[in-house]
């Protein structure tokens, strides 16, 4: 009996693994233990027991349900006390990713309320949108070297923030009692005060990068920038937006820039189309802001501010975004001419809510981008403007 059960659990775990679930032997053991603790006659109980053991994030629940239904049918759980081993034929041709993966409509339904890094690629799309993939040239060795060099130079206008942790420091302002006591014991009673100071670290960084048609000429370079910055620091989240919002943090996390960019170009499907800044920011605010802006994140928006929707709803969403983050930086590569005036409705809607506006005349290389973010004198807006001007 246990043997059959174990076989079934392993079979199911393998099925899930093929569907992309990171399931190790530990989870399989837990699942087996869980099933031994419950009444196998109740389909719901079996479902939730396996769910508790094998799912570790809400976004996978939809896929899990689909896989479970198949598994339940395949192993005819209706007669639970005599779980048959999966038929020989089934064992020979175990479920492939294709057979387990959910149909487009199913995924669409699942992902509508819960997009995650893994499901955003299948977010609903309308025929009206211009969807296209992007094919980036591979990064040359010189480019890689330059990228590394530039990132070393990059100083974002984001000061490190003090954390609530302390570390030892001879010039710190606080007494480290624990270290003092240890030293005192070692030194035989001589009190030698040890000091500590607050540790500081970079705040999380969230990048929202425009990939619409008007930004297309910068796309490759911007993605290289995003790739390096994602791999250079911890706590970076990367989103792309055009007519929709795509979280590409996981795709970007791959070390090899060419692999990462290939994945990113597959993940986002609105390359070089229109821009709906207001709507994509609304999506970000509603679905992601609480998840990624939690610990005082700095938001970097890279966009030319040209909005297909004419700035509709944009100022409201910008205000919400500014209120939810530590600092909102806008890098605008539109300024190809000296006599720039913010005429576009989108730009006028966004400007009042930006803490730090970085207009750039031309970003043709990583170097110019890094310079724009760091060293160039910026048009720093005085303080936070919480009310629209």
């Amino acid at each position, binding site marked *: 009996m246990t043997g059959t059960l174990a076989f079934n659990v392993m079979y199911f775990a393998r099925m899930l693994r093929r569907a992309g679930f*990171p399931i*190790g032997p*530990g*989870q399989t053991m*837990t699942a087996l*233990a*869980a099933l031994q*603790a*419950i*009444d196998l006659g*109740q389909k*719901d*109980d079996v479902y*939730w*027991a396996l*769910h*508790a*053991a094998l*799912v*570790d*994030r*809400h976004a996978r*629940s939809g896929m899990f349900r689909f896989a479970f239904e198949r598994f339940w049918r395949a192993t005819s759980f209706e007669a639970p006390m005599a779980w048959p081993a999966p038929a020989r034929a089934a064992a020979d041709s175990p479920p492939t990713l294709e057979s387990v993966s959910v149909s487009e409509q199913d995924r669409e339904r699942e992902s509508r309320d819960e997009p995650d890094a893994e499901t955003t690629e299948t977010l609903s799309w309308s025929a009206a949108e211009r969807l296209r993939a992007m094919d980036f040239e591979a990064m040359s060795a010189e480019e890689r070297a330059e990228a590394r060099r530039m990132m070393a130079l990059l100083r974002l206008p984001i000061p490190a923030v003090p*954390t*609530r*942790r*302390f570390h030892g420091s001879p010039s710190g302002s606080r007494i480290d*009692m*624990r270290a003092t*006591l240890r030293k*005192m*014991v070692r030194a*035989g*009673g001589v009190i030698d005060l040890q000091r500590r100071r607050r540790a500081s670290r970079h705040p*999380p960084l969230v990048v929202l990068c425009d990939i619409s048609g008007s930004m297309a000429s910068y796309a490759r370079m911007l993605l290289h920038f995003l790739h390096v910055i994602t791999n250079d620091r*911890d706590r970076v989240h990367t989103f792309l937006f055009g007519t929709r919002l795509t979280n590409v943090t996981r795709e970007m996390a791959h070390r090899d820039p060419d692999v990462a960019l290939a994945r990113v170009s597959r993940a986002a499907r609105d390359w070089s189309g229109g821009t709906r800044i207001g*709507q994509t920011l*609304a999506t970000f*605010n*509603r679905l992601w802001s*609480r*998840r*990624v802006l*939690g*610990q005082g994140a700095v938001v970097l928006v890279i966009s030319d501010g040209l909005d297909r929707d004419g700035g509709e*709803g944009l100022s*409201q969403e910008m205000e*919400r975004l500014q209120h939810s983050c530590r600092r909102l930086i806008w890098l605008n590569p539109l300024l190809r001419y000296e006599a720039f005036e913010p005429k576009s409705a989108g730009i006028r809607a966004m400007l009042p809510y930006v803490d730090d506006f970085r207009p750039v005349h031309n970003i043709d290389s990583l170097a110019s981008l890094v310079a724009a973010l760091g060293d160039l004198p910026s048009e720093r807006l005085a303080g936070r403007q919480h009310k629209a001007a």
Partner: protein
Amino acid sequence: MTALPANIDATVELLRQGGYVADRALATPLYLALALQRPLFLEGEAGVGKTEIAKVLAATLGRDLVRLQCYEGLDIAAAVYEWNYPRQMMAIRLAEAAGRGQDQSIVKDIYGADFLIKRPLLAALEPHAKGAPILLIDEIDRTDEPFEAFLLEVLSDYQISIPELGTVHAATPPIVILTSNRTREIHDALKRRCLYHWLDYPNAERERAILAARLPKVGERLTAQVVAFVQALRAMELFKPPGIAESLDWAQALLVLDAGEIDRGIVDATLGVLLKYQDDIARVRGEIATRGVAPFLSGPVEPAVAAQ
């Protein structure tokens, strides 16, 4: 001390005794957490009753509740243990006064259990008179990664190493419940040690049952109206939809205000109990001003003022 529930039905019943209406989807992982002695990782939006489960469990099982509220920068000194430095200093001075200043045995003395201040995690591993306690690690997403990494040892082996003292091992492991509002993703390594459950907003039927269990005075009709209204709000794609905590607060508020039913005036006056963002309040007020409260009480509302 009550015995642990023997099956899923008993778990549902146990929670019901504590005034917590749970469905089988929640009771199953909870029962397994108790049976397999594994931590339960509860994730969900704010106000869906994650923390409440631990409290109810402690009350109904008659165990102690040890709560660790997490925050950014939570460190060992605040979460696990700290040495009582003033006492240590005093002990050293006393020893010196007694002429034992150079005596190395003093070192062993001042790093003894008497000088240890136990914080929640250590306290949870100690033997408790009423049986292994419920350890609630609340809002784990607020801590940082180093603390998460530290928790790995605690949650897999139920032991804590104190360099000066040795390893403290729990004879009976505590019942561990971790909660997260998902303000960031928790590392897979930590999740892998836990049973996972996503706690969703309840459906109308369960929410009515929760209100009836918690606030029986509200009455069936008003309860139904409250639930219908709140469920309609949740369908509206607000920035922060109301949770169960908010429904309970609102029902309580209506009770205090002696409101017999939900009308436009009472909604207008008490909307701040349900919604905590001005944009959301303004939007709902706008809807009600144009169409009244009736559509909110008759199922999910298709927004007239489109979100797009």
